[in-house]
């Protein structure tokens, strides 16, 4: 009798429930306040970005905006165009670099992942092992040799310098490879019997199946490139080739004055929102990729 009660209790709070019941309340009591705490800094930026000068200067400072305006965004545009390079130029650079970078990251990563998962060749194990070790790699530690390589190969001041050093992501490659592992070999064998080449199989069979993993690579690459300021700092001397994130960070870096705070908040918001929107759109695909993320 006692045992039965336990089991019933267990079924009441099982993992991955479909709908709400009272036993979930304790979880909500912890999760909801915690999420508010986590959101505070983000709510703060949003409020700060829309505060008029008078409220930024107010003492004591107030958290919420009471009379929202677009002043800070207008001011941001004015400051940028006063620097000699128009805002649109930075935005254009960032868009070009991010779009090409995300595309190449997805293409290169998935090609390599397919080969490592499904093809037979010498050194396959070694390459995968190397990639797994690279999961523990800290790119920031090798800035200097990377700088030398980029300088020696004549990539300074080119868009390629924004893209090539950052699109090799061992984590992304690992995730896609694990995802491809789940595809039954029968699909591939059947296509081979029909005379398809490996590349045709990759394009027509593998790509449609691994779309969630590709979306995940895409979002990781997007975050990496869109938010990146280091390539602009290290590899680019020509102001008109630098990225939006870099420029906004130079603005926010000098935002010690109260007047600068509003601009800084507006700039942070402009950088942050595309990341968030993209993640919200793709979160379902990301989650289904993460199911295969295990390291053994």
């Amino acid at each position, binding site marked *: 009798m006692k045992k039965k009660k336990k089991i019933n209790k267990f079924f009441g709070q099982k993992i991955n429930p479909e709908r709400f019941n009272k036993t979930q309340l304790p979880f909500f009591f912890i999760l909801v306040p915690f999420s508010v705490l986590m959101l505070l800094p983000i709510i703060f930026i949003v409020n700060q970005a829309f505060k008029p000068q008078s409220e930024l200067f107010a003492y004591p400072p107030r958290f919420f905006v009471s009379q929202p305006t677009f002043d800070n965004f207008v001011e941001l545009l004015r400051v940028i165009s006063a620097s000699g390079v128009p805002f649109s130029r930075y935005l254009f650079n960032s868009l070009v670099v991010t779009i090409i970078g995300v595309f190449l990251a997805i293409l290169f990563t998935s090609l390599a992942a397919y080969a490592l998962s499904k093809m037979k060749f010498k050194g396959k194990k070694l390459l995968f092992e190397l990639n797994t070790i690279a999961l523990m790699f800290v790119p920031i530690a090798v800035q200097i040799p990377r700088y030398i390589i980029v300088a020696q190969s004549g990539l300074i001041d080119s868009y390629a310098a924004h893209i090539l050093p950052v699109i090799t992501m061992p984590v992304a490659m690992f995730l896609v490879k694990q995802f491809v592992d789940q595809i039954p070999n029968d699909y591939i064998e059947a296509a081979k019997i029909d005379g398809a080449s490996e590349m045709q199989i990759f394009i027509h069979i593998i790509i449609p199946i691994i779309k969630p993993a590709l979306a995940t690579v895409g979002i990781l690459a997007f975050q990496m490139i869109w938010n990146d300021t280091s390539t602009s700092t290290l590899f680019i001397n020509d102001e008109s080739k630098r990225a939006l994130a870099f420029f906004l960070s130079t603005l926010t870096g000098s935002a010690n004055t109260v007047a600068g705070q509003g601009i800084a908040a507006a700039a942070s918001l402009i950088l942050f929102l595309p990341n968030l929107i993209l*993640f919200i759109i793709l979160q379902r695909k990301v989650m289904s990729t993460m199911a295969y993320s295990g390291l053994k």
Partner: protein
Amino acid sequence: MIKRMNRPVWFLIPYWTLFFVFVVVPVLAAIVLSFTYFNSIQIPTFIGIKNYIQLITTDVVFMQNVLPNTLKFALIVGPVGYTLSFMLAWMLAHIPPRPRTILAIIFYSPSLTAGVAMAAMWRVIFSGDANGYLNALLLNFNLIVEPIQWLQEPQYLLTIMIVVSLWSSIGVGFLAMLAGILNIDKTLYEAAYIDGIRNRFQEIIYVTIPSMKPQMIFGAVMAVVGSFQAGYIGVALSGTNPTPDNAGQLIVNHIEDFGFARYMMGYAASISVVLLVLVYFISKVTWSVLGERD
């Protein structure tokens, strides 16, 4: 053309070329450079292990500030961020899909913010005058008598860096663990309860964690790497490199300071090698500790 692309080379070349050029070669180059004197203008000259000796014996800042700071920072941010990620993921797994998705996005969103841009916001919150939000709040409740220079006083800087980093530590590892928990076969739980598991704690220890061990390891490796990688934060908060009294100086900043400010590239490379070895070693230890309990 596509019809005849059968060889692995077609698939491997793009990724692995970049991998070798921007991962393998830089690591090897850092190792080689670490045994040289190199000021970025003249050709590097071989000086044996002098850089390493200097790093251990005469670099007071490294031994007294940088290394202790880095270890303290990483040993708090890594494990706490990791535990937090797991607990949040575990709790989220117990609520229905819709609220779960919304809350998961909220928890993950700080790691989507661009660190440098966000630092400007933290500077406003922790601003040293009475207009700073934290100061104003504390003054309002009479908890402090006069405003505190949060970001310039050595005693607070590292703590603030830890808090800020923890805030954005719910990242890829969290998503992996959440997916891991959701995919555990439900019959395992039923079996475990019939076998005599009594409470939720036992359930986590005997069913949940063992069943999602691969994701736990993945999350742990990500946590280790992430906690050593965060270097910009102290410099971005205080606005200077080196940070005031080296209070927030991490290995990453030390590399930058020597490499790009003083052009002692060989010496900076030896610090890089130490960092890479440290991260690799700690990841491997974590990995084997988590992987062992079968």
